[in-house]
């Protein structure tokens, strides 16, 4: 019964999102960009959600995966490697997701096998800095701090962005939904609860951890690719920015880490808050976000999702 009503609700919400471009002109209204940005955050946050919320590994290099995805898209486009050469190429986006997966496996093997908890978080933070330096010093290939300029003349309308964003956000949510409802999800949860006992029950801990880490990297890469198509100017400052690391974490934690709906609520909430902040108090809005993180963590560590349970249990 509960499942049925939540499926109906999900379908209704989805239909509302499908209807939006027909009701509102997404090209002229700020809502178009707002929803596109929210979708980007949903994709990258669902990735972090799987790694940290379901598997319990705090990865602090999602921005490296995001940037790698963006750079992959830009480089393939500029050098026309796949010979398809058109705008919003699904093949390019898939490759942009897979390149971070390779990095995730390469760094996951040594880091996840040897480091746990805080040490893993610190290690991934180090990786993220190394990637930044590599792109900054990449010579002619990445063109250093100036970065890559894509032909922005192809931009005609916000509509393709809206549809691609909506589809990918749905895709990311579905991927996480089906992974967490499967045997793999059960294994991931077991690892989060108690690694040693999980290993004793015959779960190959390293394999599952790397799987979760790679899926997180894949989603971050796709999100980066999508954002690169919008940004047209890819440089370390824009796509390897630490905001791409901290905002997804904030979104997951604020929405409810380790839940499917949490990152979605969190993305809309945070994007709305920051958009309002940028419009109404341009310089001081990061202060508000800092205060907000502290307040949420202090008073409702389970996130906005937990708030619902709290209200329900009181009534």
């Amino acid at each position: 019964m509960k499942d049925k009503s939540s499926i109906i609700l999900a379908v209704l919400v989805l239909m509302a999102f499908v209807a939006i471009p027909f009701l509102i002109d997404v090209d002229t209204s700020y809502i178009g960009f707002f929803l596109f940005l929210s979708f980007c955050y949903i994709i990258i946050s669902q990735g972090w959600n799987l790694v940290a919320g379901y598997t319990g590994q705090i990865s602090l290099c999602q921005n490296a995966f995001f940037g790698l995805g963006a750079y992959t898209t830009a480089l393939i486009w500029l050098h026309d490697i796949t010979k398809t050469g058109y705008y919003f190429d699904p093949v390019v986006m898939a490759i942009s997701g897979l390149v971070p997966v390779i990095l995730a496996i390469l760094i996951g093997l040594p880091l996840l096998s040897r480091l746990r908890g805080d040490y893993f978080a610190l290690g991934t933070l180090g990786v993220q800095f190394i990637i930044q330096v590599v792109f900054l010093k990449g010579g002619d290939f990445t063109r250093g701090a100036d970065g890559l300029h894509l032909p922005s003349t192809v931009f005609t309308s916000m509509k393709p962005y809206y549809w691609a964003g909506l589809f990918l956000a749905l895709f990311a949510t579905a991927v996480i939904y089906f992974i967490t409802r499967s045997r793999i999800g059960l294994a991931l949860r077991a690892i989060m609860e108690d690694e040693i006992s999980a290993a004793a029950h015959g779960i190959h801990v390293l394999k599952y951890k790397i799987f979760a880490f790679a899926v997180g990297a894949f989603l971050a890469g796709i999100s980066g690719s999508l954002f690169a198509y919008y940004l047209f100017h890819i440089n370390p400052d824009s796509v390897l920015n630490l905001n791409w690391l901290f905002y997804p974490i904030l979104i997951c934690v604020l929405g409810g880490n380790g839940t499917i709906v949490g990152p979605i609520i969190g993305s809309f909430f945070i994007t709305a808050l920051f958009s309002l902040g940028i419009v109404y108090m341009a310089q001081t809005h990061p202060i508000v976000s800092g205060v907000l993180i502290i307040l949420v963590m202090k008073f409702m560590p389970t996130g906005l999702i937990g708030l619902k349970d709290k209200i329900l249990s009181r009534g």
Partner: protein
Amino acid sequence: MLEYLTFGLVLQLLVNGILFGTMYGIAAIGLSLIYGTMRIIFLAHGAIIVFFAYICYWLFTLLHIDPYLSLILVIPASLLLGSGFYAGLFKEAAALEDKNISLLIAVGLMYLVEQLMLVVWKANPRSISTIYTAIVFRPLGINIPFTRLIALVMAVLSAFGVLFFLKKTLIGTAVRAASEDMESATLMGINPHWVNVVAFAIGIGLGGIAGVGLATVYSFDPGYGFIFAIKALIALAFGGMGNVFGALLGGILLGLLESLSSFFIGAGWADAITYGVFLLVLTFRPQGLFGGST
């Protein structure tokens, strides 16, 4: 480049590294105390250090208080701020099994302090220049600026001070016991909140000293804090988490690594080298380079 390489130059690079590294060292000792008792990675530490550098800057430019004299004000203020942070922000979170919450509170605090500094002091770099900023000692042809030497002395003194406190006083012993095993320490009648307050206060207190050192030696801006915190964490990992003297040595090692690699390989790549070594240390010697096997 190698034809310029003389004995004096190498010596200068080593000295620069050591003088640089002690700053990371004191920051790392503070982090080490906080991590030791509460298992919190206090990412906001760098932002706090820069904040105290700005306080020192303000005391100097507005009230004309000598930077070293301002330590008399900065140290009590930072001790108070540290206990305030614990009581106001981390008290509940430190007791939780889930350490992500305290990590995220630290991230939130970092954002908050950094942005406040941006609003109050703007983004352009500041530095303090006093009459003795330009004094440079030249033993054996090596340049040793006076302010850096004082920073080194401050770092070594505070490291010994903390070590003395931990080894010789009762509350220090309690802090050490709690770092080793919080549960047993609590069973022995040690109040965990009291120990945590002391560790936090001293940690931030060292941050205050580092802030004054920073203000007199380098130019600083609000964004510098995060990098500084990361460097302190690296120094901490080199020395081994929870090892006071190791943290200072780790800082010096990090300073040497940076100074040598930026000369021989290039300034931009120095960071990558540092993080690479950091990853190797984390992977193969997570107990630190100087600690025994634990």
